[in-house]
Each structure stands twice: as structure tokens, then as C-alpha cells.
């Protein structure tokens, strides 16, 4: 199963995502902001990154931009966890290099379906 990086400043959301994915057999690393996620990404070969948009220190958009600048993350799927009210954020995320998004709120089944969609 895949190595996945879950990035969210909300411990409950991050916990829910990580717990759900681990339950499906994935290996999940958690980070609570974009900066910590970048640090984690440099030392690991994650196959998928799930990231919140609004985070302190470094938000999801800036994180995507920096991740994409790393050779190892050029083609790795990065999904933004976003709310429906922010279509412009979706586009901003895409422009930064995000692969797609998962609209909050989502339940574990939706999360797993989306992850399966990306990882094949």
C-alpha cells in the first residue's frame, strides 16, 4: 500500500484522515503545516500528499509550489482538502501544481474512494 503524507493544522481532521487511511493499509505520515510537510517530504518518497489549504506558518498553496520544485515530487499527486465555498482557492491550488481536491466535509468512504482514484 502507499506511503501518504497528510497535512492539516487541525488535529482532528488530520487524525481522521490518517486513521482512515491507515485502516485501509496505507502508511501515513502526519504534518501540521506546510513547512513541516516539506521537511517530511524531503526525507521520504511519498506517493500521495493530502493537504489542507488554510494553515499557519505555511499554507497549502505555498507548500504545493515548493513541493513541485523538488525533483522527487514533480509527478506525485497532491490533493487539496478544501471547502466548497472556495472555488478560487481550488484554482489557486491548481495553478501552484495541485493535482486535484477533496471537498470538505468528506467521510472516510469518500476519502478512500478519492485516494483509490489517484493511486489506481
Amino acid at each position, binding site marked *: *500500500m502507499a506511503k501518504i503524507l497528510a497535512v492539516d*493544522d*487541525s*488535529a*482532528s*481532521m488530520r*487524525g*481522521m484522515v490518517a*486513521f*482512515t487511511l491507515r*485502516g*485501509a*493499509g496505507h502508511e501515513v505520515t502526519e504534518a501540521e503545516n506546510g513547512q513541516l510537510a516539506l521537511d517530511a517530504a524531503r526525507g521520504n518518497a511519498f506517493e500521495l500528499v493530502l493537504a489542507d489549504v*488554510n*494553515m*499557519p506558518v505555511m499554507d497549502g498553496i505555498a507548500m504545493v509550489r515548493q513541493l*513541485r520544485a523538488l525533483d522527487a515530487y*514533480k*509527478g*506525485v*499527486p*497532491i490533493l487539496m*482538502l478544501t*471547502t466548497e*465555498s*472556495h472555488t478560487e482557492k481550488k*484554482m489557486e491550488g*491548481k495553478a501552484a*501544481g*495541485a*493535482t*486535484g*481536491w477533496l471537498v*470538505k*466535509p*468528506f*467521510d*472516510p*468512504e469518500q476519502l*478512500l474512494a478519492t485516494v*483509490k*482514484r*489517484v493511486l*489506481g
Partner: protein
Amino acid sequence: MGAVDLTQFHKTFFEESLEGLDAMEAALLALDSGSTDHELVHTIFRAAHSIKGGAATFGFAEVAAFTHVAESLLEEVRSERRGVDGELIDLLLRSVDCLRAMLDHTSHGLPAADADSEALRGELVRLVSGEAAPAPAAATPAAASVDGWAIRFVALPHLLQTGNDPLRLFRELQQLGQLDVCRAFVVDAAPTQLAELDPGQCWLGWELRLHGAVARADVAAVFDWVEGDCELTIEPIAAASVAPVAPVAVAPTLVAPPVAAPAAPVASPAPASAPRPVRETAAASSEGSSIRVGIDKVDALINMMGELVITQSMLSDIGEHFHLSQLERLREGLLQLERNTRELQESVMRIRMLPIGSVFNRFPRLVRDLERKLGKQVKLELHGEHTELDKTVLEKIGDPLVHLVRNAIDHGLESPEQRRAAGKNETGTLRLDAYHEGGNIVVQISDDGAGLNRAAIVAKAEQRGLIRPGQEVDDAEVAELIFQPGFSTAAQATDLSGRGVGMDVVRRNVRDLGGSVGVRSQSGKGSVFTIALPLTLAIIDGLVTAVGEERYIVPLISIVESLRLRPEMVRKIAGGGEVFHFRNEYLPIMRLHRAFGCNAAITEIERGIVVVVEEEGRRVGLLVDDLLGQQQAVVKSLEAHYQRVQGISGATILSDGSVALIVDVCGVVRLGQRGKAAA
């Protein structure tokens, strides 16, 4: 797919949401005081956004609905479509309060929304310009049962750089119906030489046919993430048989004749392991106080443990082949063990320590509300927010502090007019300080207001019978009067209590924490209330004393002096009390053996030792048999193990394993004073 139990995350959600609301409130107050830092708006927005996302995810619909409207409003602020004024901040602060209540209700399994929250939500909705009804799902022509779809998909060069891969898209299409790749081509603009190629750019295009009764929306959904990264047309198959208008000319070179992709089912990996049962972890969500500990503190603990293990192995090494010549090494080892133990103890205690800032953070809001209510202008200064206090102390010090802050604004600080008349700045200053002093944490609440009103306090004390009419009282005694029970009356205990009202309660609360509170005041210049608190409730420095066969521990912090009395220093007074002369005053003697009923104790005062203790300016002498030495005592609650005992604050275990009781100096002094008053 077994349902994943999310209740285990509820507690975290409530905790972080309340923290988010605190941050939101602080940022709102900063905005209110004129800050234009745009990051504040982001902070406020982020908090609302997270709460909304979490609430929706964990199924707290009412909280989500409320936050949704607040978030929409905040989005307008964030995108600078709406300015910030006092009215908006008021509304948002009320929303913060409302959300706190809703979260509280939700966490107790009660309905979150009530008439108030609905009314407030209505206000928010009205304010949000053109709050659109939730957009209906994109209108799609009813799932036309066509034969299928002709799809023309040409990647734009940057497509791959978004992590989207046509392979994945096509696999998804395969799951909808039978997919034929009619044609794959390299677009004209592609570099003709490898040397010029950036392999991260995509120069391919496809003509596909998807057969089957598939809704157009489902086909479009496959491509939703690559909107803007490709040219895409999706047409019903019949219509597409006409040559499509090609926006990009195709390179004739590698045009392959339509090849039917082998409909080999892509073996999707079987869902790995069945989802693990999650029920057993659900119990973890039950209530229970938890504490967040900085990783540095945990690291310090682990370091200490490491050193302890080294010492232990060194000692057991000595123990295994012990020879008297190693006595010095043994002694060194024991010293090291002592040091390790002490450091470990300190590290463990630090885990319970939290910064007082979490309590201080309540005050900007409180001060703002009081300013408005009372028509005063107050500048609040906070200092020493990082000073750490025991968690239990921290939880209980909030109310006394709130009381003192209210008092300072209500009665300490004057109105702008009065201040102007007195030649002061119209804006009064209220300052909160926290710092270490000795083994204590000191918290000070200072104002530059009018100071205690001596005449009014004396008059009131006379009226209440606390002092005799015409009795001389010095400034210190005046200050003490306001802490006396009975100084205030319930009739005056309004929403904003008058100075003096409830001060006795403040003192009692602080005492319960093992601390003390006092006030210094200067007429026309202001007042300073000082609270001294122990670093922790769990450990005290004590003097071990012997009383008969028992051991009593007197907290070191209360001890003024210990002395042996000569018979002529003691005087018997009417009513059987005994006093002795000490630094220009007579102090009552409290015979501990009598107070606690100890057998075989020394009863002649001159053969025992008198320990002078002080609490809030009052002193008594405790008669004990002997002083055995100083020791740190880990306080065990008697209430928890037995019951509350007058004059005893707890128990501890001595190094020889016996139990010693800890003297509650406050209680004992009160008993002693009563004896003196009766005298």
C-alpha cells in the same frame, strides 16, 4: 466497506475548536484596538474555516451551519469586500461566544442550536451580502441514454506537472464503460528533438470513444481536476461521427490507425486488508482531563531517565562486588542518584506547568466589554505571559483574577472626565504581571486609578462592625479590611461588583491554592494587588517537626523563625491562653500536641521549640517538641484518601516510610487568632 468510527476524534475537535475560538477572539480584539495586520484577518478566518470543516466532517450540522455563515462573512472581509468596524467586531465576538456555547452543548450530547444561536445566525445571514442559496448540483441534462461518448482530449504542456496523468484518467474512464482509444497523436508544437524536450511537459492528444449508458456528468467528472490543463470536448457518439473541429492540428507522423484498446480489465488491486475493527478504540473518547506537553519537556524527561539508568547500573555494579574501599565511589553514586532524582522530579513537575498566558488571554475581551459598559478608557498591558504555573493552579486562578480585573476597572480607574480633571491621561492603564520570585509565582494587577478610598472603607467597616467607631487604623489595616468576610453585603453584589464585594472570596480561593493576596494602594496614584502562588501544589518545602510520637511538617514558606522560649517570656492570659513576646508584639502560642491530640509530647513550653509562622500578616507560635530537618514533601490529599481535617492540609511519606501530616498554617493561625480574640 465497514464504517470508520470517528467518535474518537470528537474530543480533539472540541479542544482545537475552543483554541481556535480563543485565537479568533484575541485577533478580533487586536483588530478592534486598531491593528491593521492582515494576518489577524487570516487567523480569524482560519479558525472559522477549521471549525466548519471539522464540524461538518464529524456530523455536527448545527455548528457547521452557524460557522458557515460566519465564514462567508469573514471571506468578504478577507477579500476586502467588506471593511471592519466596531459593529462587525461586536457581532463576531458574539458569534465566538455563541460557538463556544454550541460546542459545549454538542460535547455534552445536547442540541447545539437554540433560539439565541438561531437569532444570531439570522443576523449574520442578513449581513452577508447576497448569501446565495446553496447552489443546486450543476444542472446536467438528464442522464441521456446515449450509445456513448466521443472524447477529444489534448493535454496542455503543463498537465503532467499537476500530478495528473492521462493513464489514470483513462483507467477511470474504463471503469465507466468500454473504452476505445481511436487515435493517439503528438501535437504539432512538440519539440522534434529530444535535446529540446522537457520530459515534464506533455505533447500528446487522444481521440477516445467510451461505449455504454454513461451520464455525461460522470464522464466530465473524470476530467474535473484537469480543467484548464487540457482541451476537452465530450460529444454524444452519433454527433461525433462528423469530423470534430480540431483546435490543434495533429501531427501526421505517428498517427496510428484506430486501435481498439484491449478491454483487458485493469486488475485493480483487491482492497488490501479488510478495514480493521475500530470499536475498541472508541472508549478513548470518554471524558478525562488531558494535558498538552511540549516535546522539549518530554525530551528532558527522557534525558533524565537516561542518566538515572546510568547511575543505577553504576550502583548495582558497586553493589555486586562491594568492598569497603569503594565506599567513596558508593557515596558519589548515591549523590549522583540524589541529583538525578531531583532533576527527574523537576522535569516531571514541569510537565504540569502551563503558561499563564492562557488565562491572561481572557482579559482583552473582558476589558473591552467593561470599557463599553462603564464608559471608561483602559489600556491593558500584559507582561510575563510565558510564566508557567501548575495546571491545577492555573485552572483555579482564573476567577480570582477576573474579579480583581473587574474591580480595578469598575472602582480603581476613574472615568475619562475625572481623570482629565485630575490631570491624568484620559485612558487608564491596567497592567497584569506574572513572574517568579523565590519559590513562588507572583501575579500583580496594577492600575493607575484613584487608589483605595480610605474614608469610605473605614466608614463601611465601622458600619459593619469590623472596627470600633473612631478606632485608629493604618494604611495596611485599611487594605486588609477589604478582604474581611462581611465587609461587603450581598445587596451590592451586582453584575459588576463594588470594590470589596467578594474580595474575601478572592482571598479564600487564593488561599485554597496555597497562596496569598494583598494590596498596596496610594491615593490618586492607583492600587497594586499582589497574588503569590506556589509553583506547584504537589510538592512543598517543609520543616519536619516532632510532636510526641508524631511528625508534622510545617511549610517552610510560612515560617518566620524558630526559637526556644525562656519561662519568663511566656505569659498566661485570661481564659487559659498563652502568649509570648516576639519582636514588639505578643503572639499566641498554639500547642500542637493539644490541637492535634498527640500523646507523650513535651508540655513544658521552655523544653520544646516554638515555630513562629505567619499568614497574611498574622503570626502565631507553634509549640513542637523538636525540629528534625528540612525536607521536600510530596503532598497527598487527605480528602482523597480519608477526609478533610481542620488544621491539616495533607499528608506525606517521610524517607523512613512513615506518614507525616502537613500543617495548614492558615487554618492553624485562624484557630490561634480565635484563641487570642477570646482572650
